[in-house]
């Protein structure tokens, strides 16, 4: 018996509902005098619905597995695919790094760096990447920063007084 994606969906649902049901007992009760149902009422209803949905999903996963039979999954991943997964993970890390450095470095520096690294990651030549990064950064700055006066952080350039 192999656990498939379909099973995982069902298991995640059940896990979420257990977490919810563990938290809700700490909520205050509703007020008796005005017949107010407590804040735990609706989350509890949803959690129970989630358990049922999770179980249904598990059942349908087992059924699908029984129907499909066994042994069609190829476990070997091609190097090409591994490379893709690596790039995807790097992309996510890059986004998180971007928001970490967004305020300290400031909008201009962090965005141009982020875009340059991102396009380099996606296989663009460095000088093209630099050009497009500069264009995007400038366009966004003009639209968001200048036209609509949204406070984009100045960061180190601001500290230097530029």
């Amino acid at each position: 018996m192999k656990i498939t994606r379909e099973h995982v969906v069902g298991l995640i649902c059940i896990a979420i509902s257990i977490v919810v049901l563990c938290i809700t007992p700490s909520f205050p009760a509703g007020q008796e005098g005005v017949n107010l149902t407590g804040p735990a009422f609706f989350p509890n209803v949803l959690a129970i619905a989630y358990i049922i949905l999770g179980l249904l999903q598990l059942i349908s996963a087992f059924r699908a597995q029984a129907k499909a039979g066994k042994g069609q999954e190829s476990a070997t991943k091609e190097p090409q695919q591994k490379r893709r997964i690596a790039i995807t993970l790097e992309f996510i890390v890059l986004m998180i790094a971007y928001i970490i450095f967004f305020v300290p470095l400031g909008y201009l520096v962090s965005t141009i760096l982020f875009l340059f690294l991102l396009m380099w990651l996606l296989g663009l030549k460095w000088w093209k990447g630099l050009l497009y990064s500069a264009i995007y950064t400038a366009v966004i700055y003009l639209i968001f920063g200048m036209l609509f006066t949204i406070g984009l952080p100045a960061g180190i350039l601001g500290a230097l007084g530029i």
Partner: protein
Amino acid sequence: MIQAFITVFSPNVLIPWALAMALGIFIGAMPGLTATMGVALIVPLTFHMQPIAGLAMILGLSFTSIFAGDIPATFMRVPGTPASGAAVLDGFEMNKKGKGSLAIMLDLYCSTLGGLIGVVLLITISPVLAKFALQFTHFEYFWLGLLGLSMSSVITKGSSIKGLISMAGGLLLAMIGIDVSTGYPRFTFENINLISGINFIPVMIGLFGISQVIRDIASASQDTLSGAAVAETSRASPREVLRVMGRHKRVIAQSSLIGTLIGALPGAGADIAAWVAYGFAKKTSKHPELFGTGYEEGVIAPTTANNAALGGTWIPALVFGIPGDTITAIVLGAMLMYGLKPGPLVFTNNKELINQIFAVALSSQVFVLILGFLGIKAFSYFFKAPRNVVLAGITVFSLIGAYAIRTSIFDVLIVIIFGIIGYFMEKVEMPLSPLILGLVLGPMIEDNLRIGLIKTDNRFLPFLTRPISAVFALILAVTFFYEPIRKLLARKHTD
């Protein structure tokens, strides 16, 4: 009404409006950039304008982008927006036959006409509906909210269990933050950012935008789009296009009606409208066998319906304050930010604004025609930009767009988290839009249920005995049980 037209054609409305419509062409024509995402991206900008300018931008952008989605659908077999999914079927086949120009011109003219019919229906029906809706109380709104949810999960393709999981997930997310009735912070884990709840715009940008980027990066086909050639086509004259339309006017009328009605259903939008109109056109056609081979009706039906649906989606949004699709879901959020309370009272308290919205919706159709034509001319340049440059652009616009809503880094984090969640949801074929609807409709359902229960001393029966409530409950029961019962019966027949 004339006053309304004068207002909306003043420069400080007209300029952002026209710019947004031009942007809509670009967003719609770019595969991966949906109308919903486009609207989500411009909404932060609109908070700094007068409400009608913001609403004009949203309306205009949605009309142009839903049309422009047909451009890559016709020429590259890639729907520019989900609403153009059905446009691929016959549009691309026509292009293969060298009739791409006729197909895209049909798309343009029929989109405009469909949009116009949808808006006229919106203008004529919604004030009547609004009067009716004024009689609604907590009971009815509770059912209406549930009805909106049920629509989304019943109509979404694929496993209905997964649709429900997605929807209930959205409802659970809506529980995060201060409980309105008691003031108790729920599921906030002592995090200040969570106290006001999870804003659905970053969730949506993440689910639709970033997840698309992740999917494109993760799939090996990196240079699929850069090398796509567009077949040479002979140009279609306006007269030829109009003649074809005249031949199929029944399909146009029928698809406009279907589009508007489906748009008006809470939770169903332009994409579903297009598919249903296509299916209906095929069923009622004299030549159903020609569908899928590059048949004109197969192009006309979906493109008419998806633009007609846009007018339709505004009916429940304006009248009941519940979203007709994800775009109007954002509109409702935006209206609250402008200090407007969507719902039946808008028609009496903000009559001027309603007239202005109607004026914008009508005039937008003329702009669709002009900008759409320019867009078709210019589209070949857009696709010349390398795919990786486009992906980087989507990413940075999504992140900065989320930041701009309330200059919060936390919202940007939400975008990234839901980008990853959205990627995995699509990987397991779980539909994304029910989650958004759950998140948007969750507070409406919960608050109305609990306030209703206060009124009735915790008895549930009055939710069923009020006439309108009873009808809603019945509709809900039918939509919920129709499909399983039909399946059960079908199985009995085959056994």
